[in-house]
């Protein structure tokens, strides 16, 4: 990156953050109850303990503070996380099709959630329901199996991970189908969960995901130089001073942990981890120093926007956000493919 690129990067980040804030405020106004922007400002002032001359409906305050705000924050964090995990995995696997679920996080989480739905729907502890917890455990257990299947001695084979991931995916999908056939009453809930939604967002979830998300982001930012070097090739990276095996292992494990957190609060949301990295790579090139921060904000913006649509596009009904991301993501990905066909050949 040249010095001009650095200032360029800062401008872009500032613009993205502004867009995120504006979309966030707009998103607060949207939903089954439309709340004007002026009321939002008043609710915020009230919350901060400042006097407001005119009273506003308490239900507005409740909706904004306890329903919409945590939901917007969660969708922002999840979107950002999914996008940067996509970036990291694409670098580790040197494969542009790698996504945050490549190590089996999604099928593992879906399997865990399915068990949770069938055997203990609605149970909860510490403000988090059993389904989220089971999804998290299922995701991590699957990652553990995939990782160990792909490990030979002290080395981890990326091809091994791709294959093991595919096998686990097929295996768990069959188990999920089997459970759905045996417990037909729960099919709706299982299908809805696997399509992804933020309708259970709460401040408890925000608190739960905040710390791992922050640590994960800091980890990936600290590794931007190493990831840059790694995409030149593993031998090159080692001879430039990168402990390649350690970098791969750490990144795979930390990113999968993050993905498991994301999936456990939101279900499976596709395409964010795929299109956002591709879009920004096309704009800024492959430098991870630019990609990681811009993709985080870009992914956050995209998913927050999609979730706003998900809960406001059809009156009195919520569409799973995973459907929205795919409806936008699919054609957009085709567009990118079409535009870059020549580069791919």
């Amino acid at each position, binding site marked *: 990156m*040249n010095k001009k690129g650095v200032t360029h990067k800062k401008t872009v980040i500032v613009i993205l953050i502004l867009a995120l804030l504006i979309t966030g405020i707009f998103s607060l106004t949207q939903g089954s109850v439309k709340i004007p922007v002026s009321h939002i400002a008043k609710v915020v002032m009230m919350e901060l303990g400042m006097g407001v001359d005119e009273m506003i409906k308490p239900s507005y305050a409740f909706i904004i503070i306890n329903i919409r705000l945590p939901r917007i924050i969660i969708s922002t964090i999840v979107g950002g996380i999914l996008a940067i995990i996509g970036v990291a995995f694409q670098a580790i696997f040197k494969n542009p099709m790698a996504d945050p679920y490549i190590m089996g996080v999604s099928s593992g989480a879906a399997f865990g959630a399915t068990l949770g739905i069938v055997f203990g729907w609605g149970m909860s502890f510490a403000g988090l329901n059993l389904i989220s917890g089971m999804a998290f455990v299922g995701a991590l257990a699957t990652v553990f199996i995939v990782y160990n299947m792909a490990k030979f001695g002290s080395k981890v084979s990326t091809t091994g991970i791709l294959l093991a991931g595919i096998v686990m995916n097929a295996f768990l999908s069959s188990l999920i189908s089997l459970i759905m056939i045996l417990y037909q009453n729960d099919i709706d809930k299982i299908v809805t969960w696997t399509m992804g939604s933020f309708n259970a967002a709460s401040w408890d979830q925000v608190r739960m995901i905040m710390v791992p998300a922050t640590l994960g982001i800091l980890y990936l930012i600290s590794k931007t*130089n*190493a990831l840059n070097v790694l995409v*030149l090739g593993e031998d*090159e990276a*080692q*001879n430039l001073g990168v402990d390649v095996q350690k970098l791969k292992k750490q990144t795979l494990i930390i990113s999968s942990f993050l993905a498991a957190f994301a999936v456990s609060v939101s279900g499976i949301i596709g395409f964010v981890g795929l299109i956002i990295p591709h879009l920004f790579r096309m704009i800024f090139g492959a430098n991870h120093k630019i990609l990681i921060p811009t993709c985080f904000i870009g992914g956050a913006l995209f998913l927050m926007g999609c979730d706003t649509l998900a809960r406001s596009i059809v009156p009195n009904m919520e569409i799973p956000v995973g459907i929205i991301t795919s409806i936008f993501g699919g054609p957009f990905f085709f567009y990118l493919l079409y535009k870059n066909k020549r580069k791919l050949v």
Partner: protein
Amino acid sequence: MSALKVKDISFRYGVDDVLRTISLNIGTGQLVSILGPNGSGKTTLLKNMCHILEPHEGGIDVLDQSIERYSYKELAKKVAVVHQSAEHDFEFSVEEVVLMGRYPYMKHFQNESANDYKIADEAMRKTSTEHLRHKSIKAISGGERQRVMIARALTQETDILMLDEPISHLDIKYQIEILKLCKRLNLEKQLTIVTTLHDINLASRFSDYIVLMKDGAIIKYGKPEDVITIENIMKVYELDVELIESYSYPMIIPG
């Protein structure tokens, strides 16, 4: 002082012996070529010498210290390597790639300093790649890319440069250009250079010493005039050649 000391190393892939008790001593400031037919173990030897592979027996010293005792970053400050395998699927500018040579000197969260840019500029000037600076690494020719990879290696500011078949897949013009560049760097900076090569005549012309390998063993190690002989070529390549001695270095023509 010796730049690289290879002490009785053996290396196997599975049960196949690829290197059989090899010993080699390379002095500082030399330009050494490793020659040999396909499968003779040239690249495996080079990869052992830069710690990508670890020998099953024996040991290697880099600048009189065991290679095992270097951390990854410390070794990257002593030895730079241009591998054959470098991948270029990602959109980096030439300048970004060259600057990656500063990786061993950087800490977490650190950006390249003005000094890092200066060193990268110097490396690009030496390799005549300055004009490519803002081009994508994917959009330049094979010869240009090889020069960029050498610039990246120079940016590491090492004592030793290793190259794995740097001129295969290149036109004759670029082949000569790359080897002349190596020779110049070797003379100007007293850079120790170890390179695997396929072309016997080019190796003879540009090298101080040649390592001739066959079946994982060194058949001959010495100055070009001692290594490039009719008998040695027959022994290693099973090929009849005519030797031309009218230049300052021996050349061969296959009979």
